[in-house]
């Protein structure tokens, strides 16, 4: 049997062409403490240097045998460039991801720095992506938050949620602004040669929004984004998604990714076998809490439920148990030799 490179394996799977075995990859962060320790730097130092970002991603893939590398790891790069700053927690113990320290008071106050796309850490992320693309060893994933989730980083989420009912026009104008930003960044990353682009509309699950509101507030903007982007392009949503899988499927993505709350068996029935489905194990529970001996059943469960590639439901928590990650990778390689609903095998 022919053996593919990690890059080929991911590229072919996302084109729904036959692969040798299921790739081990994700559209969310996959950095591990084992890689950070190898570099001998604190976690807080990773985010501000292109070299550190690229190295930590590559080392994580080297150590565990992932097929892809993903940067950045935090959700503040764009809000920071827009002018909202960034808390890095340089002195905090352990792993703490950067956050946005302040938000605009309301949608009227939103005043985006005109040169935002080249400000703050935007060039750092782009340089890291360039390094990883030119290295060529792994498939390179780019990601951008969806407009609603990005919006929640720069104004209070409750203003958006209540505004849908009280100030629908203002909220729509704000969402248009965020949508343009998302398209701009995603296109820049695609122009750098990333192998796939994930739009993470993380905070829009039905834990927060009704399906009706999702159709009104989320879907039109995601449709705009996916219409502008090249393939392969993936839509990921965390939390409750069972009630909106049909709406997600109308957004124009090539693949849909879900977290562990999704009933994949039902989703596959609703969506059919012509769509790539990715998911959906609980990354913290599976890789940090469970015993390694429990991991294969979880991974096999995802495959048996009908995913085309096993993805963690979110970023993996960097402080993984190495034996659990090895069990994840090993199980995907073995159980992933069989064809999946949307992708055959060579």
């Amino acid at each position, binding site marked *: 049997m022919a053996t593919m490179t990690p890059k080929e394996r991911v590229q072919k799977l996302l084109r729904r062409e036959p692969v040798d075995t299921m790739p081990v990859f994700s559209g969310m962060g996959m950095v591990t403490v084992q890689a950070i320790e190898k570099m001998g730097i604190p976690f807080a130092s990773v985010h501000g240097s292109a070299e550190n970002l690229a190295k930590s991603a590559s080392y994580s893939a080297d150590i565990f045998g992932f097929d892809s590398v993903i940067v950045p790891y935090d959700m503040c790069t764009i809000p920071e460039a827009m002018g909202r700053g960034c*808390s890095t*927690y340089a002195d*905090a113990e*352990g*792993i*703490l*991801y950067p*956050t*946005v*320290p302040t938000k605009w008071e309301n949608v009227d106050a939103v005043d985006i720095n005109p040169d935002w796309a080249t400000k703050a850490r935007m060039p750092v992320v782009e340089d890291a992506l360039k390094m990883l693309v030119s290295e060529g060893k792994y498939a390179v994933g780019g990601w951008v938050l969806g407009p609603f989730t990005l919006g*929640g980083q720069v104004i209070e*989420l*409750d203003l958006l*949620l*209540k505004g*849908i*009912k*009280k100030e629908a026009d203002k909220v729509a104008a704000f969402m248009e602004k965020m949508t343009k930003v998302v398209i701009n960044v995603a296109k820049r990353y695609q122009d750098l040669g990333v192998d796939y682009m994930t739009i993470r509309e993380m905070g829009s699950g*039905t*834990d*927060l*929004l*009704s399906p009706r*509101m999702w159709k009104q507030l989320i879907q039109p903007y995601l449709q705009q984004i996916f219409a502008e982007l090249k393939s392969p392009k993936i839509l990921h949503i*965390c*939390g409750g998604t069972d*009630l909106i899988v049909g709406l997600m499927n109308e957004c124009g993505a090539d693949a849909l990714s879900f977290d562990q709350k999704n009933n994949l068996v039902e989703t596959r029935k609703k969506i059919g076998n012509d769509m790539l489905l990715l998911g959906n194990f609980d*990354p*913290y*529970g599976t890789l940090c*809490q469970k015993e390694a001996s429990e991991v294969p059943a979880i991974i096999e469960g995802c495959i048996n439920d009908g995913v085309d590639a096993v993805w963690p439901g*979110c*970023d993996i*928590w960097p*402080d993984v148990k190495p034996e659990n990650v090895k069990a994840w990778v090993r199980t995907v390689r073995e159980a992933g030799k069989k064809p999946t609903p949307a992708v055959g095998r060579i």
Partner: protein
Amino acid sequence: MVSEERRAEILKNLSEGVVEYQEDQVKEYSNLALEEGLDAYDAIMNGLAAGMEIVGDLYDRQEYFVPEILMCADALYAGLDILKPHLKIDTGSGMKGQVVIGTVQGDVHDIGKNLIKMMFDVGGFTVHDLGRDVPLEKFAEEQLRTDSEIVALSAMMTTTMMGMKKVIAMIKEKNPDVAIMLGGAPVTKDVANLFGADGYAESAGNAVQEAIKMIGQLRKLKETGA
């Protein structure tokens, strides 16, 4: 003294105002309640909180989602701001506890935290709200400073949840009797147990369900005179 019929009408309008998120209606009937001599605690628990219980049912039936709940909470607070200063301290109304609440360092999401805070406000607790992105040691310091019985911690992301474990250890080491509540999307029963917490709610919606259940229990306690 207000008649039973008028009392029922005022309470109904307070409850409906919360359910329909009509802040002006809630303000109007809160003021009327006070003008006409209705007990403030009665108006809060059997008007505002009763409305919030209906909101909880609507959430359970997936008729309401978080945006509606937030607007109902705004309406509830509109009434609470008017009624709370008139609570009679010596009537045994409400709980007399204190709670320290906040989202842990690294987390700037606070919708769930604010909904739980609402429950404590309605229940008559003194709430020490530390806000969000709170340094871990601050929770322990504030608990000691205020001698609060409850500390409620929220984290919306797995990436910040781990901080909760440290806070719990810090607080329990100094005062093992403090009840610790955890909230947030990544928090499961297993995580709460593992971290040594006393209770948990896994999402903003779940938080409000828990909050509403607790309000319901408070109302029942009051009704039975317990």
